[in-house]
């Protein structure tokens, strides 16, 4: 009994997984019920929520282990979220009313919307259309805007300071992030995330295809710009998630939480949940663009598109790739201390932007000389 009590969250997770898989298999032929399940259960809201909480735990646990301590329990993010929901919700005098009430909710909606573009079990995500990479970039810019408005609405000196810092950071990392995602898009010849993820020339698919004999050894030269762009995209994702080296926007010890300073209870819950989900979504999009997402394409073709094993293998490969990216972000967080806002701007404009430009330039040069098969 105590085993069940102590491990209630993993058991719940596994039970939910089995339940979802059973539903998925039971209704796989039925066109009427599958779309509903898709949006609410498996790659949709419930899955994204659980994965967001899981990656928050993974991030904190890895951070703790690298500092040689034990770290939080597996169920800890669930307790944190439930506790924030149970706390009192204070609206201070002097805040700008509609923004202060609405923006945390809007942030959660935006985070879910970004997460719906992530391909999880098939080559396409829940939402997929031509040019959706640009739309995802637009959504990420909206998240930055919402952070600025939130800090402005708190009407608190710390909030205003955090908001202005968040806006400056947003201007800095957006262009390197866009350029680093544009490199693989140019190689794949498409701005659609699903088509980039099945491209033969992504960072992971290139060596695999070389050993499979689909590309020649000269094409491996594409790895150089792709590694550069992958590193820049990880750095930009760290800045977007406001993780430690690039988090002057809500530095706890200097400006006591920055733009989140006046948030309590449900509103803090929403902003934190949005951050967790955004971590999962960004890791998923970077995994799709650089590491081929869930793609075990040849495998899928061999055993058929509706085969259970194929789906499980795809989901497993997706989870491994996303976990690696979250681990890299955690590694950045552990190894470095917080930098000042002027250093952040300097790093991104002086170093990462030219580096990502060089990466894209190298890809264009190689495409002109070697070509894409």
């Amino acid at each position, binding site marked *: 009994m105590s085993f069940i009590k102590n491990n209630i969250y993993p058991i719940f997770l596994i039970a939910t997984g089995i339940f979802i898989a059973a539903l998925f298999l039971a209704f796989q032929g039925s066109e009427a019920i599958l779309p509903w399940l898709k949006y609410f259960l498996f790659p949709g809201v419930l899955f994204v929520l659980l994965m967001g909480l899981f990656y928050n735990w993974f991030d904190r646990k890895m951070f*703790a282990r690298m500092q040689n301590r034990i770290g*939080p329990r597996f169920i800890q993010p669930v*307790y944190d979220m439930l*506790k924030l929901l149970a706390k009192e919700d204070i609206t201070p005098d002097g805040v700008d009313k509609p923004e202060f009430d609405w923006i945390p909710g809007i942030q959660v909606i935006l985070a879910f919307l970004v997460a719906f573009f992530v391909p999880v079990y098939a080559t396409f995500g829940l939402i997929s259309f031509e040019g959706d990479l640009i739309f995802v970039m637009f959504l990420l810019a909206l998240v930055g805007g919402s952070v600025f408005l939130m800090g402005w609405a708190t009407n608190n000196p710390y909030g205003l300071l955090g908001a202005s810092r968040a806006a400056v950071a947003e201007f800095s990392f957006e262009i390197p992030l866009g350029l680093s995602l544009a490199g693989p898009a140019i190689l794949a010849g498409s701005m659609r995330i699903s088509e980039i993820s099945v491209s033969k020339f992504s960072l992971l698919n290139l060596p695999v295809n070389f050993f499979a004999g689909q590309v020649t050894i000269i094409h491996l030269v594409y790895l150089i710009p792709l590694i550069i762009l992958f590193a820049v995209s990880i750095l930009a994702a760290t800045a977007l998630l406001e993780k430690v080296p690039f988090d002057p926007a809500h530095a706890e010890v200097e400006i006591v939480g920055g733009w989140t300073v006046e948030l309590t209870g449900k509103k803090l819950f929403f902003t934190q949940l949005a951050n967790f989900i955004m971590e999962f979504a960004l890791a998923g999009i970077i995994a799709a663009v650089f590491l081929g997402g869930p793609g075990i394409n040849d495998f899928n073709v061999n055993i058929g598109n509706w085969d259970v094993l194929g789906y499980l293998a795809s989901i497993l490969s997706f989870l491994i790739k996303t976990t690696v990216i979250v681990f890299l972000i955690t590694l950045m967080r552990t190894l470095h201390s917080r930098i000042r806002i002027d250093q952040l701007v300097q790093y991104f404009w002086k170093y990462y932007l030219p580096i990502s430009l060089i990466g894209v330039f190298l890809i264009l040069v190689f495409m002109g000389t070697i070509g894409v098969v």
Partner: protein
Amino acid sequence: MAKLINKTKLVVDALTNSPFVGHLNCGSCNGCDIEIVAALTPRFDIERFGAVLQGTPRHCDVLLCTGPGTRQMEPRIRRLFEQMPEPKFIVAVGSCASTGHIYQETYSTCGKLDNILPVTAYIPGCPPRPEAIIDGVVKLITLARQGAKATEEEED
């Protein structure tokens, strides 16, 4: 522990398993503050209990207060306490905060923290060791859980 009555078991579990702590110097000599900071270091790892240090009282559940509470600081202490969302707990860290220690009946302090704030747990020591501070926070959590359970049984 009346703060946790009329809540379901799940909510009590959540509230007692993730205490976000804040740190407030109410006029101490910094000895206790250093020990609190030591308790937050990787060596003692209070994140095992779900405790995370927060910068602002708006995010806190537990406020670790050190020092007897000076007259100058008194209105600010009250204000910071009012800024915390319910349910909230105050822990008096150190002998000064608990009893006044050498500051009893001095003109410039409130004597002890009890005189201005509703304190839930007292951690004696001058200064208390980090182990003692962690033990105090864990005892507060246990007390809160027991109190919630007791009131539940009374109602039944």
